[in-house]
């Protein structure tokens, strides 16, 4: 077996392989998938000299631990957490040199949810439709990590990292998300729009890579009936019959039959993916740009 591999020592609550996903197949029912906190994933890769589309490990709340068989460079970004190499403290958000046989551990997140572990050469899982990402909705891509599993590493490439450390974001007291109204905001009452902006929601522990679920008041419908299935975008805020909106993240279904009241711009989804359960949540509705200039 190759030395260019790592062995999972502690898998954590849910650790998956992620890259930038497999866009372009939605018409076949294939979700985009990919790292939920894309800037953190890209940064981790830059810190170890990888191209930004190399695959990293995405952890969930509790981190993970892996043993590397050969010497390599690693970096941990995303949700801030204690980092150790063979039990000794190591920097978070900076390149770490790992000797052959060392165990790198990312501990529980001090705040935030998703951590990213990059290794020189990237995780070399088989590609499915051009991507190494695990898609938890469809089951495409590699399995989530399990203790004892062995993952191949690619060949390290590129120049040495030009960044030494990267600043981390502080804890978020309230998640505030802009919401571009439509396409089905007319299915809801004016009061429902007011409710979204009132800050009456918290992030639900039932959230996952498919969607951020919320706890709070139901949104009131202005019309009954069923919506014929229609295409769904990343960041869509879909409102199922119980009235509690679900914010679609990267593993969301590509079509759906519940009305979408608005869409959160993609650049704010990393913050949504890092909002821990219980975080207060408020939406700031605005019309679509194309409508605003009317």
């Amino acid at each position, binding site marked *: 077996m190759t030395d260019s591999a790592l062995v999972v020592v502690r898998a954590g609550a849910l650790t998956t392989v992620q890259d930038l996903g497999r866009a372009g197949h939605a*018409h*076949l*029912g294939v979700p985009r998938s990919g790292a939920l906190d894309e800037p953190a994933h890209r940064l981790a890769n830059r810190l170890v000299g990888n191209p930004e589309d190399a695959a990293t490990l995405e952890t969930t709340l509790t981190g993970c631990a892996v043993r590397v068989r050969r010497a390599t460079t690693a970096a941990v970004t995303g949700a801030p957490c204690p980092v150790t190499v063979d039990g000794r403290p190591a920097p978070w958000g900076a390149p770490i040199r790992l000797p052959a046989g060392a165990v790198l551990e990312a501990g529980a997140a001090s705040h935030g949810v998703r951590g990213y572990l990059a290794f020189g050469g990237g995780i070399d899982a088989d590609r499915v439709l051009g991507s190494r990402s695990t898609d938890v909705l469809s*089951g495409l891509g590699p399995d989530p990590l399990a203790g004892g599993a062995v993952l191949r590493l690619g060949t390290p490439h590129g120049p040495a990292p030009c960044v030494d450390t990267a600043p981390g974001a502080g804890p978020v007291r309230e998640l505030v998300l802009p919401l571009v109204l439509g396409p089905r905001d007319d299915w809801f009452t004016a009061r429902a729009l007011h409710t979204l902006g009132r800050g009456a929601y918290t992030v639900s522990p039932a959230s*996952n890579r498919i969607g951020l679920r919320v706890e709070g008041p139901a949104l009131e419908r202005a019309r009954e009936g069923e919506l*014929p299935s*229609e*295409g769904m975008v990343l960041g869509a805020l879909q409102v199922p019959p119980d009235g509690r909106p679900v914010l679609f993240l990267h593993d969301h*279904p590509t*079509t759906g039959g519940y009305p979408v009241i608005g869409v959160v711009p993609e650049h704010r989804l990393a913050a949504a993916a890092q909002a821990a359960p219980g975080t207060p949540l408020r939406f700031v509705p605005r019309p679509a740009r194309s409508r605003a200039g009317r």
Partner: protein
Amino acid sequence: MEGAEGVNEANEVAQSGSFTVRGLPVGDHALLLEVGSDEAVEALHAELLRRVGTPALPAVREIVPAARTVLLDGLTDPARTAARLTEWHIPALTRDQGAAVEIPVRYDGPDLRDVAKLWGVTPDEVVRIHSGTEFRVAFCGFAPGFGYLTGLPDRYHVPRRATPRTRVPVGSLALAGPYTGVYPRSSPGGWQLIGTSNAVLWDAAREPAALFAPGTRVRFVPQEEPLTPGQGGAAAHAEGTPVTEGLPRQSARSAANEVAR
């Protein structure tokens, strides 16, 4: 035809001889085009595919047809795209006369009798009518490889089951509303099950991975003998992993998804 006012609700952005297209904004980088029928979706989708990559329809990441809409995602300027659409003439549909994909089916589903009752015919007649129909994949969704197939006349549309099944076996041929579908993997489901197929609808190692894509024409061919798993369909080249593989892991995965307990 309406003027180029940008993407406004209920704004007609294009028309053909027989239908108009409404453009609805979806965030700042997508546009939902809505029409009145699945035939109109088919014509609009065909025209979008003809024009993608031309100045009429520049960079777009996804073109996703559905029941009454086509979603264009990944547009730099949806309002501009909508404005350009006003200049389009969408020609009437000319059906591709290529061969239909043939899916071998045993009409042995547990809901065949219920469907026969709903149709007011015998189970044998259901088989005759269903296998005598040419279907078309109107759109995909629900799972990779799952197609929503249209083709049955209105009088044969059936409701979903009152109580969904917790597990529908892989390969089940099923009806709901105007649609026929084949489950690409085992999952919970509320559709009426009328048969079983061994066609491999999705195989990530195959090119193309999906047997059904929007626009694919499909015929179901009744079989008397038991079907050999994973050998069926026009997927004569299907020899990849059976779609059932990894299902237990799927449920484990769903459980693991409930993060942050």
